[in-house]
C-alpha cells in the first residue's frame, strides 16, 4: 500500500525506479502524471490551489488502491497526490502500477485515475491572469469514466 499526500513536487523517474526496485517479476510499468493545464474551461489559468480533506483523503486513496489490487494482479502500485498551490505546467498527481503483464498495468492505472477523479476529496480553485479565482465544477465526463468500473 503506497499512497502519499504532499505539498512538494515529485520525481517521476525516481518514484518508478524505487517502486520497481529488485522485483524481477515486473514485466511492465504504467505511469500517469496529471498536470495543471492552462485551459481547463476558462482560459488564462495561471495557477490553482488544491484543497483536500486531511484524514479522509488518505482513507479514500487507500481504499482505491486496495480495490485495484483486488481487481488486478499487481506487483506494486503508487499514488502521489499533491495539495496546495501549483502553477501552470506543474504536476499534480502521479499514479504508477507495476505488473507482470502490461494490460493489468494499463487498466489498473486508468482505473486509479478514474476513481481518484470522482472519489478522492480534493477541490480545485483556479486563478486566472486577471487576479480572479473560481472553484472548478465537477465534470460529468469524469463520473461517466468512473462508472465504467462499476461492478454492481
Amino acid at each position: 500500500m503506497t499512497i502519499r499526500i504532499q505539498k512538494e513536487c515529485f520525481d517521476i523517474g525516481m518514484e518508478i525506479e524505487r517502486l520497481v526496485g529488485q522485483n524481477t517479476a515486473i514485466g511492465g510499468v504504467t505511469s500517469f502524471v496529471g498536470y495543471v493545464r492552462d485551459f481547463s474551461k476558462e482560459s488564462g489559468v495561471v495557477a490553482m490551489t488544491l484543497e483536500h480533506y486531511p484524514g479522509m483523503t488518505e482513507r479514500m486513496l487507500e481504499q482505491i488502491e486496495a480495490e485495484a489490487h483486488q481487481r488486478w494482479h499487481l506487483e506494486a502500485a503508487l499514488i502521489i497526490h499533491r495539495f496546495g498551490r501549483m502553477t501552470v505546467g506543474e504536476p499534480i498527481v502521479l499514479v504508477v502500477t507495476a505488473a507482470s503483464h502490461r494490460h493489468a498495468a494499463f487498466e489498473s492505472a486508468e482505473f486509479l485515475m478514474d476513481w481518484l477523479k470522482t472519489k478522492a476529496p480534493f477541490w480545485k480553485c483556479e486563478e486566472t491572469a486577471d487576479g480572479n479565482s473560481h472553484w472548478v465544477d465537477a465534470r460529468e465526463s469524469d463520473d461517466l469514466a468512473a462508472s465504467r468500473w462499476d461492478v454492481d
Partner: protein
Amino acid sequence: MKVLYFAWLRAKIGFATECVTPPTSVISVADLIVWLKCQSPGHASAFADTSCVRAAINQEFVDLEAKIPPGAEVAFFPPVTGG
C-alpha cells in the same frame, strides 16, 4: 458534533470547522442542513442549492438522507475535482 466545510462552502460560511449542538429532532444530514441554514447568512448561502452539496460522515461519503450517529464528524463539500 464537529462539522467541516470545504471549497466554496468553506468560503461562503467563512470558516472551515465548527462544533454544533443541534436539537434532537436533527436526525439525518438533510435535517442538519436545514438547521445549519438558520445559523447565519453565510450558512444559508452555502446551503442554498443542496444539489451541489455532498457530505461525509466520519470520513465516508454518505447520502443526505443518512442518519448521523452520536459524536460524528460531518463534512460538507461540493462534488470532488481532484486528479
